[in-house]
């Protein structure tokens, strides 16, 4: 069973993701509320997949993604953004994000993104 780390400043969004992913059978091993926390949690937990919001306090998702990729070049990170943030998504893909999802989530899309990242 793949392990997942969730990073979003909104508890509501994390609960939504948890709700969808737990139904799909994934193991949520950790949650982070900002960019710095997600790096710390990644070092400690080494999850199979990270689902990370681009807009987060303390350190944004793009910088956190860079830091995680430096720690682990094989890190599988899926970025999550709101509609209208296409430029940020393109940048994240360039940095090394495996896929992206747009809020509000479409549950099958979220599951497909994880499957794609795990391949």
């Amino acid at each position, binding site marked *: 069973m793949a392990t997942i780390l969730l990073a979003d400043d909104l508890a*509501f*969004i994390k609960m*939504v993701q948890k709700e969808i992913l737990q139904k799909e059978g994934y193991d949520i091993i950790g949650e982070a509320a900002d960019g710095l926390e997600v790096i710390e949690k990644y070092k400690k937990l080494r999850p199979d997949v990270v689902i990370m919001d681009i807009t987060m306090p303390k350190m944004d998702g793009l910088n956190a993604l860079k830091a995680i990729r430096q720690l682990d070049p094989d890190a599988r990170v899926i970025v999550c953004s709101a509609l209208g943030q296409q430029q940020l998504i393109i940048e994240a893909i360039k940095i090394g994000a495996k896929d992206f999802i747009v809020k*509000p989530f479409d549950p099958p899309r979220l599951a497909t993104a994880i499957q794609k990242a795990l391949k």
Partner: protein
Amino acid sequence: MFLKKAQYLFVFIFLSHNLFAFSLGNNEALSNIKKIELLDKGYRTIAVIPFQNLTTKDEYSYIGRTIQKFLSNDLKAIKKLTITTQDYLIPNEFQTNRSLLYAYGTNFIRDVVILDADMIYDSYIRSPDPEDPEHFAKDIKTDYIISGKYSFNSGSVHELSVSYTVYNTIQRNFIHKNSIKIHEKDLDQGIKKISTDLVQYFNPSETGYLKMVTDLSNYEFYIDSKLIHDKMNYYQLSTGTHEIKFQSVDHPSGQQTNITIVKDRTNRVEFSRINFTKNKAVLKVSSEPTDATVFLNVRSLGKTPLVFTNLEPGNYRLQIFKTNHNTYYKNINLFTGTNHFRVNLEKIRSKEYYEKRHKRNKLIMYTTLASGTLFLTSTYLFYINGTIEYDRYDNTYDRNHLDKGNIFMTVSFISALAGLGSYTLSLIYFFKVINYDDVNIGYNDKKLKFNLAERSDNHYLYMQYRF
């Protein structure tokens, strides 16, 4: 001596506490009185059900469940509520009967229980209608139900419009309604706003009690313009001023007063009784089966058997309603004095049932007609034959003819008897079928009125099938 008395007192308190706890633990469906006892002691349960998805996409339904979970957790986190979780409930009982989600138990400490979102979800699946919390309340025993709806605002996915309601299962009405717009970047704060708004309705430190001294059984009773269906002596209300109204059919303006509810105090309200005069009418309604709701000019008076006093004599529209039964309608004329209506409410049956009855009644009708015809024909033949034979006997003494005539006469006589018997039996049965067993009769003490015409539409259908 004193110590011994104190010992007895201690044992008495200990036993009564445990007896109280035991009696609660064995109550599957608590009566309203019991609920009020619990309310008096501060025990209240709240169920948050999944919010309804009004967006165009079914995929977003998970948001409704997340709001439910998030709101439940948020309400639990508000210290003011002094939340007691279901850990305090008897675990075995809880496991064996998941729909029995009522606050009881020996170790139950105080205040509010937010029923677990996952457990609520199971019951919600069985009764998934947020528009009808009462329907849901049948499945789950709780004092309050929080439900709501959400949609994306004006087609934008960045802003969520959430409306929410609090339903009081004891008073059987919505005690609070509100709506809020939440931006996607403000989801946590938005839900927190909802929970903060809801806290005042559940915070024991901000409520007091209203005690109704007046007997409400024959009157409509309103708190803050909301009709209260379950008439009880005690109501728990938030602190502050509330408008209390007391109304009857003949006094539509009613009596009204404002009352200030003080924290943790019982506030008494008594309305002066409306004087009965000799020229007033009294309406008595009884029904079979009982417990049917009576409406007079579209106003609910209560449930049968019912006595409603102090009405102005005159014409009214009477309706008696009971689930799964044909509704009774009648334009009635109330006279001074007692007007008694006894109504048999017919159970709504399937079309097949009426068709079967129709066939049976047709058969009875044809049998009656056939046997009547047989009787008349046979009697006529018997008479004719008898006359002919008598003439022959007189004139010809033809033995052969006489014997044949006798046989013919015997046969026609037996046939006439059989026809008469059959006709009588089918006639009796015919009248038995059209007996007044299920015909509604309205009468008063001055006039005795039978009115077959004024019955429900379904009854007409039944009558049509009958003949």
